[in-house]
C-alpha cells in the first residue's frame, strides 16, 4: 500500500480492501480528504469508523459503475482521471480550519440526524465567522 500525503489530501494506492485501509488509520496523517485509488479487485469487506475525522473518496477509472458495496463504504466516489482538478475545485482558497468545519457537518451526517447537522452547521458558522472577523471569538 502506497501513501502520498499532500496539504489537504492523502492519496492511497495499491490497497486491496477496506479492512486493509483500516489497519493503521494514523498512517494517513491528518488529511481533510482521503482518496483511495482502487481497481476492479478492491474488496469492500468492512467499514471505516463513522467518526473517522476526514472525508473518504474512492477513485476509480469508471466511477459510474462502482459496486454498491464500495459506494456504501466511502463518502464520495470520483473519477481517478482528474483527482487533482477535483480537489482543486473543492478546496481552492480555503483554509484548513474552514475545510475541517465544513467536513465536520458531513462527518456527523454519516450517522447523525437532520437536527444534529443543523446544530453543527450553526456552530461551525460562528466559529468561522469569528475567524473572518479577526480571529477572536464572538464572545
Amino acid at each position, binding site marked *: 500500500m502506497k501513501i502520498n500525503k499532500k496539504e489537504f489530501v492523502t492519496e492511497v494506492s495499491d490497497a486491496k480492501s477496506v479492512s486493509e485501509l483500516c489497519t493503521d488509520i494514523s498512517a494517513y496523517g491528518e488529511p481533510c480528504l482521503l482518496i483511495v485509488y482502487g481497481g476492479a479487485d478492491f474488496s469492500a469487506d468492512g467499514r471505516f469508523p463513522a467518526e473517522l475525522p476526514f472525508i473518504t473518496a474512492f477513485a476509480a477509472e469508471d466511477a459510474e459503475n462502482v459496486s454498491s458495496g464500495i459506494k456504501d463504504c466511502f463518502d464520495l466516489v470520483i473519477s481517478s482521471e482528474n483527482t487533482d482538478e477535483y480537489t482543486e475545485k473543492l478546496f481552492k482558497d480555503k483554509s484548513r480550519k474552514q475545510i475541517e468545519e*465544513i467536513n465536520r*457537518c458531513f462527518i456527523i451526517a454519516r450517522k447523525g440526524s437532520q437536527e444534529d447537522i*443543523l*446544530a453543527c*452547521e450553526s456552530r461551525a*458558522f460562528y466559529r468561522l465567522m469569528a475567524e*473572518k472577523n479577526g480571529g477572536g471569538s464572538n*464572545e
Partner: protein
Amino acid sequence: MSDTMLLTEENGILRLTMNAPSNNLMTADFFRDYEAVMAEVEEKAKSCGIKGMVICGGGRHFSTGADVEALAQRSADESYDDTTGELPAGHIRQKHFFTFLRGLAFPVVSVVTGFCIGSGSEIAVNSHYRIIEKNARVGQPESTFGILPALGGVARTIDICGMQNAYELVMSGELIPAERAYEIGWADIFADKKQGVPAAEKLIEYIAGRGDFAPEKSKEIMQDYKENEL
C-alpha cells in the same frame, strides 16, 4: 405585511412573493421582513383549509443571497460561546423561520427562477419541493467567503441530493445551472420560463386531492406525482 414580502391566499394556496431590492439581496431589512411574514405563515398554518404554499421571487431572481458584509457585522455583534455551544437567540429565531417550513402539514413549494444563491437557496432547500425554471442558477457559495451555509443549507442539501452532491456544492461553492440541479435531485421538477408557479399550483392541487400529505412522505408523494401526472 411589508411591501417586500407579499403574502396572498387564493383557493387555499398561500403565495409568498419576495420583492426586496437588488434581486432579493438578503440584507438586515430583508431578514426582518422575512421573519415577520413567516411568523404570519406559522400562524395561518394553525388553521385548517390551507392546501399548500408557493414561494417565489417577484422579479427575475429568486434571491441573490445574503449581504456577506452585513452578515459579518451582525455576527460580530452577537454573542456565541463555543465552550457551551449555546447559539445566539437571534440566530435561533432566524433559523427557525427557515427550517420550520419542512415541518408544516401542507406542502411548501419554492419556484426557483434566475439566481437562487446562498441564504436564498436555503429558503428553497427548506421547502418540501423545488420547481426550477430554465436558465436558473443555484448554489451555496458561502464557502468562497470563508464561511458555510448555516440556515439549513448543509443539512437539507444532504437530505435532498445526497452526501456527494451536497459536499461538492457546499465545499466548492460552485453555482450550477438548472439542468444540473434537476439532474442531481436538488430540483424536483424542471419547468420552462414562467411555468414554475402554474406547475407548483398543479402539484399542490394533486397533493390536496390525495389528502395524505405529511412531511415525512414528501419524497414518496413526489415519486407518485412524477409517475402519474407528469
